[in-house]
């Protein structure tokens, strides 16, 4: 198998952990913290992570379903997040073979336009629907999501980085 230099062989990801982490990200998005315009969308970052690392497990349908849930929770237009997530995950799947060859900060930089596009879709949809632009702070959200990428990556890959046969020198 051709692999980027220096990347360790990973254990297979457990489906329970994948769906557990997606639910945890959904819970983070559901936290009632008030109207914060720059709040990053944790669910989008985790969805992109799994669709890049496990494209056979997490795909467009899951993104669509999670998007609908967020639409209901946020009382926004039904289908707005669903469309943004579907497009986001489509481009993430298109990228997934290429992007893992970059370093982690490089990956974050490559994903920045993707996150920005997802937010732009929501903004354009609402402007067409007759709403007003809420303020420049919404532009911070994709940047923060991109900054979350290394942290999310380190957390979610940790179980796969364990040693397959733990011994005294490698307890984990």
């Amino acid at each position, binding site marked *: 198998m051709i692999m980027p230099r220096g990347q360790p062989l990973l*254990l*297979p990801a457990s489906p329970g952990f994948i769906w557990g982490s997606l*639910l945890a990200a*959904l*819970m983070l998005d*559901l*936290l*009632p*913290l*008030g*109207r*914060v*315009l720059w*709040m990053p969308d944790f669910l989008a970052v985790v969805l992109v992570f799994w669709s890049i690392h496990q494209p*056979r497990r997490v*795909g*467009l*349908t899951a993104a*669509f379903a999670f*998007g*609908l*849930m967020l639409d*209901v*929770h*946020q*009382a*926004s*237009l*039904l*289908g*707005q997040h*669903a*469309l943004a997530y*579907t*497009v986001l995950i*489509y481009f993430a*799947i*298109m990228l997934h073979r290429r992007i893992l060859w970059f370093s982690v900060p490089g990956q974050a930089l490559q994903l920045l336009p993707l996150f920005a596009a997802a937010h732009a879709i929501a903004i354009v*949809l*609402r402007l067409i*629907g*007759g*709403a*007003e632009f*809420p*303020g420049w702070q*919404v532009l911070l959200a994709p940047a923060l999501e991109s900054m979350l990428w290394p942290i999310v990556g380190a957390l979610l890959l940790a179980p796969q980085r*364990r040693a*397959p*046969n733990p011994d005294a020198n490698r307890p984990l």
Partner: protein
Amino acid sequence: MPLETLDRTPPPFFKQEPSALSRLMLLSTLALFLMVADARLHVVQPLRAAIATVLYPAQWLALQPVQMIQELAGYLTELKTARKTESAARLKLAEQSQRAGQVEQLLLENARLRELLALRERVQVPAKMAQVLYDATDPYSRRVVIDKGQLQGIQPGSPVLDESGVLGQVTRVYPFGSEITLLIDREQVIPVVNTRTGTRSVAYGDPALHGGMLELRYMSTAEDVKEGDLLATSGVDGVYPPGLPVARVASVDRRGDSSFSRIRCQPLARLQGVAHVMVLEPVGDLAPTAAVGAAPAEAASAPASRPGRAARGGRS
């Protein structure tokens, strides 16, 4: 125990699923269809209610830590702050008790006068208390979610008050909660009467201004409106009972180039961080049809429920 090092299922060779592009097309068409159905046709409420019911346990769980922190913060509030809020509350109570004393007498007087004039009785509207769970995070609208829903008998369209005035209207009802659109939402309109002069008008929400205000549109510059005037619901819409305080006029801007003045009003209800609200039942067809006549009452109730875009065409 050594862990599995290989995926149990190798990638399928011959069984191919639909490609990502075709799935993208299908799902984005579905999303666009849903958005049109939601924004224009208003037919997706059952789907929304179903998703909300599925999501309810997760929402409840997410609410717990935040409520716990709020309670803890409330517990640790300084004594001084608590004393200050208590004295403010007592002051307000004293002010209100004076007015309440007058109200008893006025009610009696009013009932006799109405009897005399053979007018309809004022409607007593049943009310339910509810707790605000969270502000909806959608940055394009101003909504809050309360903890009472269909199961507690909340009806869509019900007016919602807080302790100082009208807060908004119930726009969506789920089994375990409902959404309230605040007065300052762009799509919210409320018919009001100026309590000093008795002039009727319609107040439109304007969320962009100083954290949200109301605007009285189509009031000619000759109209008698002053800063500090109290606006109350006029009751011609058949949704809000008449006489509820809504807003106070904050600024009147009479411009030379227009025959309408620009009137901004500050809502009386607390729109940020309101905790407890009262949901009234919509007055419905009990509107004073005898006094106003059927046609104007209908015309006035149309903007109160949900104005189309045509109604907002004359935005100045």
